[in-house]
């Protein structure tokens, strides 16, 4: 494929934005000095396995590994790693509650705050659900269930100070980790088959369960955003609505039952902060995008380009004037199995498709999994720095006929 590279690269480096300014400019659909990048948080971050290899590769042997998401085995990268890769974001996480601890079992399983048990198979990368505590519940049981306490003071301890410190003493864009799932949390509690059945044939239960979760999330975000709302630029929320081939739930079901609850939560979040709202859903989410934009979503992530119809050029054309994109670098094939050259081509393609006129933050599609080599991670961020300089000079090349694809 022919790439038209900008020859005046050195001149453009004369003006360099600070990460926060870069991110806010991009999120306002304007071009910055270059495309911002992300590799942190619990849904745009990096797994323990990939991170440990990366640290060895870049010669940082004294880095500790701090897990920030046990189920997914996601770590918070060391500040030095983030700096080295030029990551524009830093994340703020709520703290563990004071009055609750997970129940641990000898088979490498645990019960979470919602009462769901998760087990990791030997050599597994993450934990999977092994039971669904509300599987047999009826509507009345929902009232008596032992729900997590969203207002537990432990969750917010020291948060405001931390956020203020990051805001005032660093130039990074600040984001809050993904939480607030309504549909997914419902089926985690109920089991997918049972909850799908509820949505069609037992609506009173489905609606009551989702209302309970909405209530809990609003109570959480109220306090959380009281602490950090004025310091953060991006709030992550999400609910997986799609799979590899297309929607996993009927878009009509989404519109009638889930969307109104998403809307209430997102409007509430936006009443508490100026931050942009970033919605995560894996899979081929095309039929939901307009709905999400209607209810206040500013940024879509992770842009699973390996799923059906997730063509970044078309996404940008159709929604790019109002919607920003975060992620996009293929993690199902290119990052784990591609060569560094393929990684660089992938980065250029996503920049070419998504970055013109701002509105794109580059990162892996979802968290970087353990089989991704450090060489490929470094190639991704080096290429992003090289080809992500504005103006994107090779943008026009996208109209060229594509090279033969194997």
């Amino acid at each position, binding site marked *: 494929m022919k790439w038209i590279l900008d020859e005046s690269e050195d001149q453009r480096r004369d003006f360099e934005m600070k990460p926060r300014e870069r991110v806010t400019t991009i999120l306002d659909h304007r071009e910055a000095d270059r495309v911002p990048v992300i590799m942190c948080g619990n849904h745009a971050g990096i797994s323990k396995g990939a991170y440990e290899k990366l640290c060895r590769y870049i010669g940082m042997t004294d880095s500790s590994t701090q897990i920030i998401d046990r189920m997914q085995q996601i770590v918070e990268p060391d500040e030095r790693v983030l700096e080295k890769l030029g990551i524009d974001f830093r994340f703020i996480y709520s703290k563990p509650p004071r009055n609750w601890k997970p129940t641990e079992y000898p088979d490498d399983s645990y019960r979470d705050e919602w009462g769901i048990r998760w087990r990791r198979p030997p050599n597994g990368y993450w934990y999977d659900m092994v039971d669904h505590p509300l599987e047999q519940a009826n509507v009345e049981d929902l009232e008596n269930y032992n729900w997590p306490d969203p207002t537990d003071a432990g969750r917010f301890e020291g948060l405001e100070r931390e956020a203020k410190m990051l805001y005032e003493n660093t130039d990074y864009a600040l984001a809050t980790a993904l939480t607030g799932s309504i549909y997914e949390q419902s089926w985690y509690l109920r089991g997918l088959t049972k909850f799908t*059945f509820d949505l069609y044939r037992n609506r009173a239960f489905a609606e009551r369960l989702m209302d309970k979760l909405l209530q809990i999330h609003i109570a959480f975000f109220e306090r959380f955003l009281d602490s950090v709302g004025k310091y953060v630029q991006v709030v992550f929320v999400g609910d997986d609505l799609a799979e590899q081939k297309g929607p996993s739930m009927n878009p009509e079901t989404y519109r009638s039952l889930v969307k109104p609850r998403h809307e209430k939560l997102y409007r509430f979040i936006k009443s508490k902060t100026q931050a942009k709202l970033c919605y995560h859903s894996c899979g081929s989410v095309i039929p939901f995008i307009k709905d999400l934009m209607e209810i206040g979503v500013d940024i879509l992530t992770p842009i699973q380009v390996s799923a059906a119809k997730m063509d970044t050029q078309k996404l940008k054309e159709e929604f790019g004037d109002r919607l920003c994109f975060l992620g996009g670098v293929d993690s199902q094939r290119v990052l784990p199995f591609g060569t560094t050259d393929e990684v660089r081509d992938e980065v250029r393609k996503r920049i070419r498709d998504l970055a013109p006129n701002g509105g794109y933050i580059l990162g892996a599609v979802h968290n970087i999994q353990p089989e991704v080599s450090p060489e490929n991670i470094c190639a991704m961020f080096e290429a992003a720095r090289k080809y992500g300089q504005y103006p994107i000079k090779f943008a026009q090349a996208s109209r060229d006929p594509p090279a033969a694809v194997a």
Partner: protein
Amino acid sequence: MKKGDSLIDRLNLGSSIGLFEVFPMTNEVVLERLKEAVVKFDVDAVKEACNDALQQKIPPYEILTEGMAKGMEIIGEKYETGEFFLSELIMAGETMKEGMKIIEPYLQAEGKSSKGQVVLGTVEGDLHDIGKNIVASLLRGSGFGVADLGADVPPRRFLEEAEKSNAQIVGMSALLTTTMVKMADTMKALVEAGIRDRLKVILGGAPVNSAYATKIGADAAANDAIDGMAICKKWAGVP
């Protein structure tokens, strides 16, 4: 004319008002009702139609293949054309499961051979079974006998069950790139036991494709549950 007087009303109301002595439903009408009920995910109507069909002495195997399976075909078509989604496949599977509960004892008594015996499971180390469960329901609803071994199934369990049930098809599912390698281990176990050649082996799950199936010596990889069902039906020689 008051409601219930017309022939249509009587047919729709079915056996609940005992009109069959007067207007016995043809087999086609009952099977049509069953098909419609599956497509509408109407569990009560499915149960009622199954009971009515049995009462009318329609052979159980025909109830399955000419009633429920026909409904399933429509659902498969709607899924393929993008009118239905994963949620509808789950609903269809659950709806048919209720019908199967009614027919299954009679099917066994009838002793009519199924379209084939399938051993299904999610491979060792992988606990993801949503897709595999849908496939199991769809295959049962299409007239296959299915031994569902669940999730986290080691190679020797696939082998044991394939030998025990004299299966024609082994289906393995994996969601993870790390666990799909276990499919190769299972293939090896089938080869070593000398039963590979009398079986068809099909793979399913996001990370697998035809190239991977070829690489490990399996016969096919399904793109999704509907595709998996179609491949099994083709192998069984049914249209």
